[in-house]
């Protein structure tokens, strides 16, 4: 009886020693957006504003191009489009496609002072609400400088007041990307 108990004591640890497969595999980071690229075409020129952050949540800040910010021409109407990429994958993963497919759950917002310009959405999701991947930007008055903030939200309330016209205040949801570009108008 006594020996039996002793054996039980020794055996139980062995049973419970569930060996976890401690493979040293690195995490394949999904859902990362490394790059936000805004392309503006108008007045015979193409302006590309890009923010790229290859270390994700790491300490390095996103690299903004062009250095010194984008320069618009006063009064010009630009046809705009925005892309989201994961450049950690090879080849780079185009997240824009996914945003478009799930357009009803996504929206891109553009916040900028009216002296820099005004943005109007030109695309719609399955419910007829804007997604914001395509837009027009009418540049403001010459001599202005400011910041264009581009924000991608998902699971937001697209029916909330002002959201369809591009006001982020009541949108809610969660932020997938938020970048600030310096912009000047000549």
């Amino acid at each position, binding site marked *: 009886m006594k020996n039996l108990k002793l054996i039980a004591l020794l055996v139980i640890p062995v049973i419970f020693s569930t060996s*976890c497969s401690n493979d*040293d595999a690195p995490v394949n980071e999904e*859902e990362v957006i490394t790059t936000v690229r805004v392309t503006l075409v108008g007045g015979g020129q193409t302006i590309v504003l890009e923010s790229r952050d290859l270390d994700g949540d790491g300490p390095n800040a*996103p690299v903004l191009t062009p250095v010194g910010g984008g320069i618009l021409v006063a009064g010009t109407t630009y046809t705009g489009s925005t892309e989201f990429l994961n450049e950690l994958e090879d080849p780079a993963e185009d997240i824009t496609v996914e945003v478009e497919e799930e357009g009803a759950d996504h929206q891109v917002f553009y916040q900028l002072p009216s002296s820099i310009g005004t943005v109007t959405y030109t695309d719609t999701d399955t419910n007829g609400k804007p997604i914001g991947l395509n837009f027009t930007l009418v540049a403001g008055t010459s001599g202005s400088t*400011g910041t264009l*903030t581009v924000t991608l939200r998902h699971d937001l309330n697209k029916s909330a007041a002002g959201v369809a016209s591009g006001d982020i205040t009541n949108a*809610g949801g969660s932020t997938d990307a938020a*970048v*600030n570009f310096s912009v000047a108008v000549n």
Partner: protein
Amino acid sequence: MRFLSILFFFLVGFFGYAQVTITGVISDENGLPLTDAHVHIANKTTSTDANGTYVLSGIPKGKQKLYISFIGYYAIEETIEISADLTINRQLKLDVTKLDDITIQQLSNSKSESSNEQVLKSATIEKFSNQTLGEALKEVSGVSILKTGNTIVKPVINGLHSNRVPIINNNVRLEDQQWGTEHAPNFDINAAGKITVIKGASALQYGGDAIGGIVVIEPEVIKKDTLVGKTILNLSSNGMGGSLSSSLQKGNRYGWSWNALGTFKYLGDRETPDYVLSNSGNREQNFSGGIRFAKEKYNFNAMYSFYNAQIGIIKASHIGNVNDLYNSINNQQPSVIEPFTYSIDAPKQEVQHHLAKVNYQRWLNENTSIDFQYAFQFNNRLEFDVRRNDENTNKAALDLQLATHTFLADYKTNIGNWRLKSGLNLGYQNNFANPKTGVRPLIPSYEKLDAGLYGIAVYKFDNATSLESGIRYDFSTIEATKYYLKSRWTERGYDAEFSHFIVGEEGNQWLTKPTFDYHNITANIGFRKQFHHEMEWLVNMSLASRNPNPSELFSDGLHHSTGQIELGDLRLEKEQAYKFNTTFKKDWKSFQVQLNPFINRISNFIYLQPIGFETTIRGAFPVWEFKQTEALLTGFDVNTKWSISNHFSHELGMAYVNGQNLSTNEYLIDMPPFVINNKIQYKNESWFNFVSELKSEVVFRQNQFPNYNFETNIVVDDELTPVLVDISSPPKGYHLLHLYSEMTFKINKKNSLTTSFSVQNIMNTTYRDYLNRQRFFVDEMGRNVQIQLKFNY
């Protein structure tokens, strides 16, 4: 002086003339001696020693009252005629109605002799059947709670929590990833028969790192051959749900006994006075069971428990970046309010905790026992986050699997006036951070080995005076396997110092195997003195050491559940605390006071401090870094009890903590504010044991806080504008009223039904609490009406 001593001897001699000495042995029904039984004859009292014997001298001749008591047994009260020296032996009978008291006595010598212990008994614990361990512990003054929402509740003892407050469940140290402030103890409150709070590191047998204190949970043990059942049903209005807990216990003094417990909890969204706390529901499905075989000389125990919880995290607390945080703080209104629902979406936690243990205790002789215990724990923590890709919604963002094996051997003996305890423990722990989550984990996979040795000696000068001293040595080694982003490794300044930890390279990451060894010495010394007139004085000094935990060492990025970047530091050293703790107790007939001041000087105190923010493609995130400082915590706890009349009584509890960061001359962050609790009780046994209590809880605003506010740029009216993010200012103080009342109906000799009705936050007060991590986002819960039915059978 000389005259006085002559007078003294004269008087002693005079009275001694008419006095006799009484001796005897107090034993249980089986003739086994009872240690520490209380013997009271005439106006003299004493306790029995380890052999059950007692000696009372100076008893006047004549008719005298004899009173013998021992917790868990029926007391003996009789009148005896004394004419000469006498031997009085008595056997006490077990009282099964005092079930939880038995546990107290059984283990009374297993904790600390000289430090202040406060105990919650099953009657109190049952009131919290629907809630959490943390909320029950808040009944003890000096214990506050650190919350994340309403269901994730951690106890804070004298201002300290998490790894500084180990929780010992059934003699097993709970290993449930307790480093996280949003990780609640994985324990079903219904499985507790008795909970003891020790404010300090003086119970060395449980470990040397209890810088804040220890919570010791013991199950109910019935030592009589009987089958007892208990079912508790709770219904609450806030959350529109409740819990059902049922237990069966077959008791036995010798031979086989067993117990089983099941608990089921189901609650939906909670509500504040003004809105629904969307996604604040929770569920629990718990089970525990055990068997015991006992003989006179030995007993064998085996038990298993399973805790399984799903906890919703309030949607409004999920923040994207610093803009969202700023908006939440300034709007004072949650960003998401949806209609009431029972369903739980992301963000949420799913935690499971398995505990299995076997224990063998053997009495070598009447005074000496040895104990062996092996315990296995497996903890799986899954945290689900709001993910960008909908396909990943059902995939956890964090998946940690923590397996812990511990072996204990303890030796206890009583020799004369000495009580000695010593033992050793061995532990192996393996944490596996599943990489399949698609999110870099803050906590790496690691392996940890522990070994400890302790010895405690208590010397009893007499029944009223004892001295306790203990020493403990712990060795611990940890090896982690972690991928660091190369940019983070460089930013942390690890290149020069820790390059030997690098074992591989993978794209933009280093594969590292950081290894650390720790040797710790812990010690304590304490003194207990019982004065006449029911006054007691306890004093305890302890030295405790705590090693940095994995989150403090290895955190290196965005903590998704808090929306902040948390940075650990491989250079962190162990914390060392010197705590001085004293307690004065005075007991007048109808009024009791207990005063418990303390000083806790902590060297290398580890805390999280904001150091600015980092910009990512998702915007800016505040950065919090684990830092070390010299800290000083001082404070006091006060309790009073006043029996105003047969029916009315009053209780007061107060607690104050002052936390100083000595290196920076600031206050420490997250210290509990000053609290005053008043409770007035009306009791009438002739109305079916009617009890009604009204409790007032006053929490002052915490005015002692450090200013960690920071500036950031956010878009206001389409312009990028610098704003101050006020993360430091504590919320206003508040006053809450709670009601509790109950009645017990005896159905027959064995069966009874207790019904209770309670209201928490009667006035439906809107408030926020400094120690709730969601205070930036939402108000606390509003009024909650609860009904409880308890059947004993």
